[in-house]
């Protein structure tokens, strides 16, 4: 039995190692200074980089997280602390349905409600689509994390004369914080790799752009275009972009873990 479990966990890790190894083997050689500082060059030419996509990923994902994290975490807090009634049930049900919605459908929603009325593709529309994707995920993980906080801590705070809202924030949310942050990180990492919701919203952009009102390139869109393109040079860049995207997610989660490291301890 133990042997079986060891084999399966080995297989799980093996998949990860293979992916990472393959990315490094195929992509590492294409990464140089220009890769990070230059925008793409016209097809067929060699050289150029993906600076526009790296910055674009930061903007679109950052904006998406800015919109999605407060709403998602807030909804999760509500569900855990006050969501025992019919409305809570409804919110939970909708979040579960949204969680199972294919991300390309979310992209179509973003196109219908943002791109079409605004008359153009934009980074903002992409960010909102990503936020919609992450909100139900965050709501459910936050709820789970908050529910793990023992009821006795709530009672102890209330018996000290804490108002209910302060108990929720100062004691319950604080105790669950590292779990909530981990949930947010998983959510951000997930949307950073999403392509489908951005296809009809952020669209992609071959030039360097900082305007959220304009189409914007992201690493995921870049990988999609380059990997499906006909040129070897593009394939090379797609591998390198994938490696960079994974590295970014890795750095992000390490930084956030360091920032929220627990001084005293928590439930996780």
């Amino acid at each position, binding site marked *: 039995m133990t042997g079986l479990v060891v084999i399966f966990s080995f297989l799980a890790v093996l998949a990860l190692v293979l992916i990472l190894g393959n990315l490094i083997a195929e992509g590492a050689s294409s990464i140089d200074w220009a890769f990070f500082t230059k925008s793409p060059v016209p097809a067929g030419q060699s050289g150029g980089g993906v600076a526009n996509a790296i910055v674009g990923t930061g903007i679109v994902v950052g904006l998406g997280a800015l919109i999605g994290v407060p709403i998602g975490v807030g909804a999760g807090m509500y569900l855990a602390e006050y969501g025992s009634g019919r409305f809570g049930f409804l919110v939970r049900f909708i979040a579960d349905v949204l969680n199972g919605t294919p991300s390309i459908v979310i992209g179509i929603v973003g196109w219908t409600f943002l791109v079409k009325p605004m008359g153009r593709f934009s980074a903002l529309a992409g960010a909102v689509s990503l936020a919609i994707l992450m909100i139900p995920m965050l709501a459910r993980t936050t709820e789970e994390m908050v529910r793990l906080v023992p009821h006795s801590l709530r009672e102890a705070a209330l018996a*000290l*004369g*804490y108002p209910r809202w*302060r108990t929720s924030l100062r004691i319950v949310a604080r105790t669950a914080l590292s779990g909530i942050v981990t949930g947010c990180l998983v959510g951000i990492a997930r949307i950073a790799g999403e392509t489908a919701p951005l296809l009809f919203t952020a669209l992609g952009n071959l030039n360097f752009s900082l305007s959220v009102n304009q189409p914007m390139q992201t690493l995921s869109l870049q990988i999609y275009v380059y990997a499906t393109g006909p040129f070897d040079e593009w394939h090379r860049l797609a591998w390198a972009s994938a490696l960079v995207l994974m590295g970014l997610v890795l750095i992000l989660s390490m930084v956030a873990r360091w920032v929220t490291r627990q001084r*005293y301890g928590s439930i996780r």
Partner: protein
Amino acid sequence: MVASANTRLRLETVRLTALFGGLRAVHDVSLLFPAHTVTAIIGPSGCGKSTLLRCLNRMHELTPGASVVGEVLLDDLNIYGPGVNPVELRRRIGMVFQRPTPFPTMSIYDNVATGLKVNGKRPRRELDDAVGRALQQAALWDEVKDRLHTSALALSGGQQQRLCIARAVAPEPEILLLDEPTASLDPAGTQRIEELCHLLKRLYTIVIVTHNMQQAARVSDYTAFMYLGRLIEVGRTEEIFTKPKVEQTEAYITGRFG
């Protein structure tokens, strides 16, 4: 009633009934807790003693579906009367629970100070004094004075429970409610908490719920025996344990049931 005429009354329940939905957990209890005494509430599991205790600081009503009929008088104030804010009331009535519940994200110092901070901002010096005083009252100061800013979770179970007592007394409440405070402690930890009861009653009026009759006999001045949600008998502790008037009480304290 058990109080002599010259004892200043601190807490009294008047025909108090506590319900969970339609279920009566406490039935028509009138009980006096004289000032600066320890009153023990004893009785078998499920007799409503913890529920009664939770009515005294309005914690009972936080359970969904729970309600209270009757009055609880803190001096002459009916704490269930109109205009009484339960959140502010709980700052006047401290409570310690069965299991130690230090806040895991706070240091020892912050655990004790947090009940004061929730009452409004205070100067650092004042907080330091109050934290030191509370920890001394809880007989924990000597053990933690050199590590006030380390995790409260590193303390032993008995120390954690004394920390919870320090946390409860730091805001200087008038009443201290102890809900089986030694249920999860070893004999040494239990003894320390019991010694504390004797010291703390000079400062507070103490109500202690306990499963343990020896404990009630050791720490309390008055003992109330409850059974099936009703108050069966109350009196001076030595009288309850030596010559109870009601047969049920005698049966319980001699171990024939419960």
